C-alpha cells in the first residue's frame, strides 16, 4: 500500500476500529515510513486530546436542576393514585345517572321501549288530525266523496285497482278528444 492509502487507514482505524488486516498493513508500513509513523502518532495524539472532553466537572447541582425541569411532567405515586380514584368516582356517577334515566323512561312507557322524540311527534299528530272530504273535479262525480271503504260500483271504463279504493278515470274524461293519440 502507498502512503495515501495508509493514511486513510490511520484516520479510520487509529482509535482501535481497524480490522486485523488493516492493523497489520499500518504497522508494517509505519515500521519503514517515517512520515506515516509521524502521521499515526499525530492522529493518536489528537484522539487523546479529544478524550480530554469526556467529562469535566459538571456545574454544581446540574443533575437536580435538570430533574426539577423534568419532575413537573412526572406524576408522583400520590398524584397518580388520587387521579385514578377521581376517574373511578366520575365513571360511577355517569353510570348511575344513565341507569336512573333509563328506569324513569321505562316506567313512563311500561309496554314499550323508552319514549323517543319521534313518538312524541306521532302522538301530537294523532291528537290534531281532522279528516277532510276528498275534492272532486268536474266529470269525476263517480269518485268517492271521502276517504273510506272500497267503492261498491266501479265506473264504466275505469281501471280499478282492487283492494286499494283507487281507480283511474277514462282517458276521454281527462283529455280533449283531439289530444287522444294511440
Amino acid at each position, binding site marked *: 500500500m502507498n502512503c495515501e492509502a495508509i493514511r*486513510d487507514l490511520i*484516520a*479510520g482505524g*487509529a*482509535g482501535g*476500529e481497524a480490522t486485523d488486516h488493516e492493523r497489520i498493513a499500518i504497522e508494517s508500513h509505519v515500521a519503514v515510513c517515517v512520515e506515516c509513523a509521524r502521521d499515526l502518532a*499525530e*492522529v493518536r495524539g*489528537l*484522539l487523546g*486530546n*479529544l*478524550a*480530554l*472532553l*469526556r*467529562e*469535566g*466537572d*459538571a*456545574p*454544581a447541582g*446540574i*443533575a437536580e*436542576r*435538570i*430533574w426539577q*425541569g*423534568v419532575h413537573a*411532567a*412526572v*406524576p*408522583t*405515586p400520590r398524584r*397518580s393514585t388520587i387521579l385514578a380514584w377521581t376517574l373511578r368516582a366520575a365513571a360511577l356517577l355517569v353510570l348511575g345517572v344513565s341507569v336512573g334515566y333509563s328506569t324513569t323512561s321505562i316506567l313512563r312507557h311500561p309496554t314499550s321501549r323508552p319514549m323517543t322524540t319521534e313518538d312524541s311527534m306521532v302522538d301530537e299528530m294523532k291528537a290534531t288530525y281532522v279528516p277532510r272530504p276528498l275534492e272532486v273535479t268536474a266529470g269525476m262525480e263517480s269518485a268517492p266523496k271521502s276517504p273510506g271503504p272500497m267503492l261498491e260500483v266501479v265506473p264504466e271504463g275505469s281501471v280499478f285497482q282492487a283492494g286499494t279504493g283507487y281507480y283511474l278515470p277514462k282517458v276521454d274524461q281527462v283529455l280533449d278528444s283531439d289530444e287522444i293519440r294511440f
Partner: protein
Amino acid sequence: MPDPREVELIQRCQKGSGDAFRELFDRYQRRTYWIAHNMLSNYDVAQDISQEAFLRVFRNIGRFDTKKNFYTWLYQIVVNLCIDHMRRASHNRSTDLDEVGGIADERRDPRETTGRTELRARVQKSLDRLPPKYKAVLTLRDIQGFNCEEIAEIVGATNATVRWRLHRARKLFRAAWDGKALEAVRDDEGDELV
C-alpha cells in the same frame, strides 16, 4: 442485549412509576449531559437539551420496545436534539472560550492547570467547526467511547457509514486543529462543510 434489571425498571416506568423514572434518570443523566455539552459546548444549552431528552423519554416510554437498548434510544434523542439545535443556531454561532473548556468561570476546577484548560478549549473549538453529523460520530466515538455498532444504532446509520463518517470526521478535525479551511479536505460525499 438489554440488562434484565434495566428492563424491569423500564417496565415499571411504563406502568407510571415516578420512582422508577427517577432511577433511570440518575443512571443516565450524567452521560446525557456530557454528550450534549460536547456537541454544543455550552452548559446552559446542554442542560436544556438533557431536560428535553428526558421529557421525551418520559412521554414515549410506553412505546419503547424493551428488547432494544434503552441507552442507544436515549442518546439518539439527545444527539438528534443537539443536531437540530446546531442547525438552527449555525448562522449566529459564536464560541465562548470559557464555555468550550467545559466549565465556565467559578464552576471551573481550580486544580485544573491553565495549560490543560487551554488545550481543552482548543480541542472544543476545533470540534465546533465540524458539520453536525461528523461532530456527532466524533463525540460518540473519540470522546464518549462508544463502539461503531452502538454509534450506528444511535445515529440511525449502518456500521459501514459510521466508519466512513468517523474516518472523514477525524480528517476534518485534524484540518480544524491545524487551522486549515475544512473545504481543503476532499469532499467525496458532497457535504455542506460550513
